[in-house]
Structure formats: C-alpha cells, structure tokens
C-alpha cells in the first residue's frame, strides 16, 4: 500500500523538486556569490566559494548607508501602516455598524480605487506633492501610500467588523458608551487579528514600493531599500560580488518578516481578493 502510494506520488515529487529548484537557486546563487570575490565569481560561478570572502557583506554592514536606508524604509512603512489602518478602521466601522443614507454609494466609491493602478496617477500626484512642498519629505511617500491602501484595508476591516455581534454594541450603549467609545474600547481590541492582517499587508506594500519613492526622493537622504539596491547596482556595476552581497542583505528583512507573518500575509491577500 505505502509502496504503491510512493510510486504514485514519485512523479509529483519530481515536479515539485524541479520547480522548487528554479525558485530557490537564484536566491542561493546570490547569497553564495556574495561570499566570492568578483574575480572568483567569473571563474567559478556555481560552486561553493574557494575562500569565503566576508568583506563584501561586512563592508556594506559597516558603512552607515545601508542602515540609513533600512531605517528610512522602516519609518516609512510604519508611518504608512499606522495612518492607513487608523483611518480605514474608522471608515470601516462606519460602513459596518451604521445604516446611513449613501452608505453603499460611498463604499462603491472607495472600492473603485482598487481598479486603478498607482502608475495612472503618478504624474499628477508628483505635481501635487511638489506644490505642497512634500518632495524629499517622508510624508510625500507616506500620505499617498496610505491613500492608495485605503480601499483594500477598508474592505477587509468592514468584513471583519460586521461579524461582531450587535448585542455587544447594545450592551455597551446601555452602559453609557458613545459610538466612538464602543469603537475604541470594544471593537478594536476584538479586531486585533484583522488589524494584524491589514497591517502586514500595508507593511509589505510600503516596503516594496519603488515608483513613488523614486519620484519623491530626489536626494539620497530618504532613499528606501529598493531605490538603494538600484543605485548600488548602477554605482558598482562591474563589481558583481558586491552587488550580490547588497542584494542579499536587502532581501533579508523582507524574507524574515515573511517567515514571521506568513499566516497574516496569505490570509490578508486571499481575504482581500475574495472580497474585492
């Protein structure tokens, strides 16, 4: 029985191993190449390094630049997340718990934002940010990112807020709780899993954003990691091994975050897709 089962699943495993290798090899190749000298890299592209050179990595970690970019990415991701989740939670609360004139129209208005990619508005948004003097200012990235994150965040949170039984709100109202009091003291603490999900989505989206920081940050003071990687490759295009090391270090935070928050991320993406 088990032998037959193994025989049946063998081709399936072979497929998985092959696909897995294609996914995995570029990442391992980058990590190993970072431990070689550029000279060795051209002689020995696949194998383990003959001499494990750590200089590529330690040079980058030793210079303040990398850490500054990492800090910038973090500040911008946290700022975006706090703003978009706070503002969306208020709106989603109103959509989920009030029956008011124009509710569905307003909701449709927000969901329409899902249909339009950021690239469409990039140019006018840049002009607007320039007029507001927000270029080279982290708010110039945080505010638009939060605005573009609203539709998905509102949709997911509304769905969750609706599942919380109405009796709770009645009880809170009888105890003298205002609408905001109920929202703040009862609903939000109960909605922690949903807030976690949308926060993870917002962090990943902000962390990976490229076009907006590219437009807004003309000076390198506020550059984020994706911009930094592109610039580093431009600057050291001949020194492959150093670029690989930089690339790997830039991937580590995202992959580490993914390994911690995989459940929320996948849950949020599938919830967002099925409700959007």
């Amino acid at each position, binding site marked *: 029985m088990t032998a037959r089962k193994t025989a049946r699943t063998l081709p*399936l495993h072979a497929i998985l191993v092959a696909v897995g290798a294609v996914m995995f090899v570029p990442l391992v190749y980058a990590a190993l190449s970072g431990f070689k000298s550029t000279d060795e890299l051209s002689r020995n592209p696949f194998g383990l390094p003959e001499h494990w050179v750590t200089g590529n990595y330690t040079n980058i970690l030793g210079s303040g630049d990398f850490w500054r970019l990492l800090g910038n990415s973090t500040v911008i991701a946290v700022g975006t997340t706090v703003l978009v989740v706070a503002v969306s939670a208020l709106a989603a609360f109103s959509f989920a718990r009030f029956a008011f004139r124009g509710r569905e129209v307003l909701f449709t*208005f927000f969901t329409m934002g899902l249909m339009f990619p950021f690239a*469409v*508005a990039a*140019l006018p948004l840049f*002009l607007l940010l320039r007029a507001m003097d927000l270029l080279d200012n982290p708010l110039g990235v945080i505010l638009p990112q939060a605005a573009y994150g609203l539709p998905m965040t509102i949709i997911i949170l509304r769905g969750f807020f609706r599942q919380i039984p*109405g009796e709770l709100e009645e009880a809170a109202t009888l105890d003298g709780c205002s609408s905001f009091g109920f929202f703040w003291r009862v609903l939000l603490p109960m909605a922690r899993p949903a807030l976690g999900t949308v926060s993870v989505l917002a962090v990943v989206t902000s962390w990976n954003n490229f*076009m907006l920081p590219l437009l807004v940050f003309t000076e390198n003071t506020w550059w984020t990691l994706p911009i930094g*990687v592109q610039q580093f490759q431009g600057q050291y295009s001949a020194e492959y091994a150093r670029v690989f090391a930089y690339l790997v270090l830039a991937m580590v935070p995202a992959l580490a975050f993914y390994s911690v928050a995989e459940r929320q991320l996948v849950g949020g993406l599938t919830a967002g897709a*099925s409700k959007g």
Partner: protein
Amino acid sequence: MTSTFLPDQRTGRDTDPPPPAARASRGRARRRAVNWLTAVGFQLPALVLFIGLVLLPMLFALYAGFFRWGGFGMPSDYIGGDNFTRLFEDPVFLGDLWRCLVLVVLSLALQLPFALAMAVLLNQKLRGRAVYRMLFFAPYVLSEAITGVLFSMVFAPDDGLADNALGAVGLDGLGGEWFADPSWVMATLFLVMTWKYFGFHMMLYLAGLQSIPRELTEAALIDGAGPWQRFRNVTLPLLAPTLRISVFLSVIGAIQLFDLVWVVTQGGPDHHSETMAVTMFQYGFKRYQVGYASAISVVMFGICLVFALAYQRFVLRRDLEGATTTMRGGGA
C-alpha cells in the same frame, strides 16, 4: 440598494436602540440626522485622503492631457485632442499596447494555468507541501526592484547564472543576450514575472480549493468520475470565482507594469520592453512633456476603466449577484 433606515438585517438590529413606543417622531428625525453626521464623521479622514491624493490627481491628469505643458505653472496652452492623436500615431506607444497584450495573453495562457497546476498538486497530502508552498510564494514579498536587480545578474550575458548553467549542460546555443536581445527581452521579463508572481496566484487558488466541500468531489468519485472529470466538472466550476479575480489582478498588473522594467532595461533595448507606465515616466519626468505624459495616464486610466467595467458587467456579475444579496442583508 438597501433602503436607508431599515434595520441592518445582517447584524440583526437597527443602529438606534429599539425606540420606546412613546418616543415622538420629531425626536427620531433629529436622532437620525445626528446619526448621519456621526456615521459620515467617521468616514471623513478617509474621504479627505482618498479624494485629495487619489481622485483629484486622476481628474487633473484628465485635464492636463489636453494641453501642451512643461509641468510648471498651470497648463495654459490648450491643444484639444492633439496629444491623443500624437499618442496613437506614436510607434512606441502602439508598441506599449501590443506588449501589454502579449503579457496578458502569456499570463493567462501559461502563468495562471501553471499556478493552478501547482495549487492542485499542493492541495494533496504530499510530504513537505507546507515547505513548497512557502517557497513558491516567497518571491512575492520581495520588491520588484530587488527582483529586477537579481535577475539582471542571473541573466547577464555570458557571465550570468543562466548562460553558465546552459553552458554546463552543453546547451550553449540556447544561452544568449536575454534582456539585451530585442527579440528575447519580453520573454525573459515574463519568466521573471512568473518566478515572482505565480506563487501569489497559487495561494489564491489554494484558498479557493480548500473552500470546496469534500463531499462534492467524493460524490463525483462514487458516481464513477475519473480524476480529470472530477477536476473539469466539479473543481473548476467551483473555483471559477477565484479564477476570475486572479485573472483580473493579473491583467491590471500587466497594464501598470513599471518597477521591474525600469530597473532591468528602462524599456530597452530600443523600446523593445517599454510599457505604458515607462513611456509615461520618460515623457513626464525625463523630457518634461507633462501634457503628453498626462495623455498617456488618461489612456491607461481609460483602459483600466473599460476593462474593469466590462469585466464586472460580463464576468464578475455572476459572482457578485450571490455575494451582494447575502452581503447587503437581503436588500430589504
């Protein structure tokens, strides 16, 4: 549409506490007005952000598309539809549209079926499937810029991993210039996009597959349906809503493709990988033809709008009908 002040049947209650029979109707009317203000007050911050940074910029692009304008001061040199006529005579922009279509067709014909196959495979009880799921999805969390730099090194002509690997197994002939070859650049980009995004679609399909009740496939099994028949007649129809969403996201993604192309080729060689967003960026931020670039934004917006409406009208409607009737509490 829900009639406004009926109780929300999903939560099973009105937003007001049940009124004592004696309460005067004038008092109720005032309460409703206050209630409306409270409800909209909660929306206010979101509305300000959304209108200010999403809606107004898009409307402004629509306006600026009708001017010859360098981007400073307000647009004043009105030229009617000239930007649009020029756009549809511009071989680069027509090429953008063609390349967008190519990417959409490739995604629908290859990437999504591959993602579906992997989802079906990983939906079975196989040793290590959790690890494979995590691995296949992992590239989704990497930025397109980082992915782009990585693969520009993997596909570096001669020195890169791809050419070296092909050389090592004696297939030197298949190696080449990749991103630097006008006839291969789109195919290589598509490979990278598949590497990065198929896991995302696979995760959507897996969630869809897991929501299909086991009884249905078991019933088909008892009725003597083979594996292909079970997949074709039970699984696939029930997965249709997920598939439609995934197709929608894939098409919107192809329309707005920018980061990856900008990092790897900037649209080259000789415009052979340029996309609408890249052309817009070139004119808007490098050549200061902001009116013309706005016209590109408007066309992208138009394509998204027409596609989204048509999709909603002809494809998504069936899903939404079910969803909205339950979501809106029976619609009263």
